[in-house]
């Protein structure tokens, strides 16, 4: 117990003496933690949006124009009994054209059509996006020759909006990469600044270290004060950043969520604030411990 106080006293003494570099490290930690605190919910929202699009995806089963009403009705039943299918809807040729017109906005293209080239189709919705492929397999199981063999002769083709999904994933993926790179760079910056603080501290206290070694202090006895010093930097930086984040939440995000559904929606899709705080705080302390540990290993010859 007395020993712990000795370590903490030594760490505070070192922080006081190294005020400028310590402050730089603390400020960088604050900025990093704030950015992380903003990035994590944003990333999660993006992820949630992408998941939402994916879960709304459906298969379209196009039917030949010459299919009879009976054939269509029996196909509908067959589709409905496929496992994981949550609903089956029918879009007639006329409805399909209307859909296309709505999508295109510009009707010059559809105006030039003298007949409706679009097939009537079934909209097969899955209970889960992950089951889409299995459903597609069930509709067109591979035949003896390996070629897909539709379960009904009236099926012209099966298609989905995978292109659209790809687009969404591309956008969120790019966003995610950019944010991760920024966060990564900031993490490295704070690691290095904490390391630098410890390095300066080792330099200012080389006399103490020398004396400790001479009188036979153990390796970890010499290291602990430096370790605690580094962790204190992370602790203070993390605490200040979380305070700022909390103020931001109370003054900006919470009033907005009353008016904007999207902001409010985040509350359901993202982490709860206390959990976010805990994660940020733990990572601030962990990163600072890592920064000091690595520096000690490199620069403190014991």
């Amino acid at each position: 117990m007395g020993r712990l106080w000795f370590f903490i006293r030594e760490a505070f003494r070192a922080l006081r003496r190294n005020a400028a570099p310590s402050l730089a490290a603390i400020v960088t930690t604050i900025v990093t933690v704030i950015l992380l605190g903003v990035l994590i919910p944003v990333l999660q929202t993006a992820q949630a949006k992408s998941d939402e699009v994916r879960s709304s995806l459906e298969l379209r089963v196009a039917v030949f124009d010459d299919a009879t009403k009976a054939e269509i009705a029996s196909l509908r039943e067959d589709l409905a009994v496929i496992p994981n299918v949550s609903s089956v809807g029918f879009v007639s040729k006329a409805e399909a054209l209307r859909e296309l017109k709505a999508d295109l906005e510009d009707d010059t293209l559809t105006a030039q059509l003298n007949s409706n080239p679009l097939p009537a189709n079934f909209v097969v919705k899955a209970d889960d996006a992950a089951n889409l492929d299995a459903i597609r397999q069930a509709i067109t199981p591979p035949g003896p020759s390996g070629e897909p063999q539709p379960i009904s002769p009236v099926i012209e083709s099966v298609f989905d909006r995978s292109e659209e999904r790809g687009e969404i994933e591309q956008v969120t993926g790019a966003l995610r990469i950019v944010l991760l790179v920024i966060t990564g760079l900031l993490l490295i910056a704070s690691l290095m600044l904490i390391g630098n603080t410890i390095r300066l501290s080792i330099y200012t206290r080389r006399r103490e270290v020398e004396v400790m070694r001479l009188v036979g202090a153990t390796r970890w006895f010499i290291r602990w004060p430096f370790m605690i010093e580094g962790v204190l930097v992370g602790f203070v930086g993390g605490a200040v950043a979380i305070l700022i984040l909390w103020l931001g939440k109370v003054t900006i995000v919470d009033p907005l969520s009353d008016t904007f559904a999207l902001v409010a929606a985040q509350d359901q899709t993202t982490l709860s604030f206390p959990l976010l705080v805990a994660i940020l705080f733990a990572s601030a302390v962990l990163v600072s411990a890592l920064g000091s540990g690595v520096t000690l290993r490199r620069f403190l010859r014991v």
Partner: protein
Amino acid sequence: MAMAPSLRFRSRMGRGKRQGQEAPRRPRRGGAPIIELDDVTKVYPGGHLALERVSLAINRGEFAFLVGPTGCGKSTLIKLLIRELAPTEGEVRVAGRDIGSLPEKKIPQLRRNIGTVFQDFKLLPNRTVYDNVAYALQVIGASRTEIREKVPETLRLVGLSTKLHNYPDQLSGGEQQRVSIARAFVNHPPLLLADEPSGNLDPVTSIGIMQLLYRINRTGTTVLVVTHDREMVDKMQRRVIELFEGRVVRDEVTGGYTEESTTEFGVRMRGEMGVGVEGQTNGHEAGER
């Protein structure tokens, strides 16, 4: 348990002498010498040969000088003894134990049993005299009670009881060296190494420091003093080991202070004039402050 950190080590050496015991000390025959070098060669990376086949033994309770010109390997020898360096060849034994092969984890334990004093004192400038000495005990995990008991006692021994709360830069060179000796001795190590302890001090102050080391030697601690102060060595008339270009060229006991010694120096060294109680019998010490 005041002696806890060094107890195991001491008992292995078969002695339990405590500071303060004033019986006359003679090197003990039998039992392993406290320092033993056996054909030790040290080559620094880059090929510089610092020590070449050095063999010597220093018994418990001895007071020995290690002399020689700059670059003859004196400091290398000290560094080998505290395992700051490992020998290239040969064996370095402290208290009968080969320390060349000492695992890194055991090195702190070795150093707790060796007090070290240097020319540049190595005091912590932002701590008081008391804290400097207490620091040596704190970092080896001594209890507060132990620190409160031993630090004033040791500072009394070196004659600095009145300067407990001064900072090193408020002290004279001689007093600073006394603080560093107190720090080396506060744990009562069985072996004390002094690397040029009076190198930065004037001759009169140097005598005071030697007196103190001799007094510490009389409590049972083996003392090895590295110096190039020939005059001092000749006056002290103790064992002298001389190194030249990495080899031992002289190793002789030049007698001791017998009861017949009547020179002022002899009388003083015999410990009959208080050491550390400055200004009591020796006017020289007063000028040091």
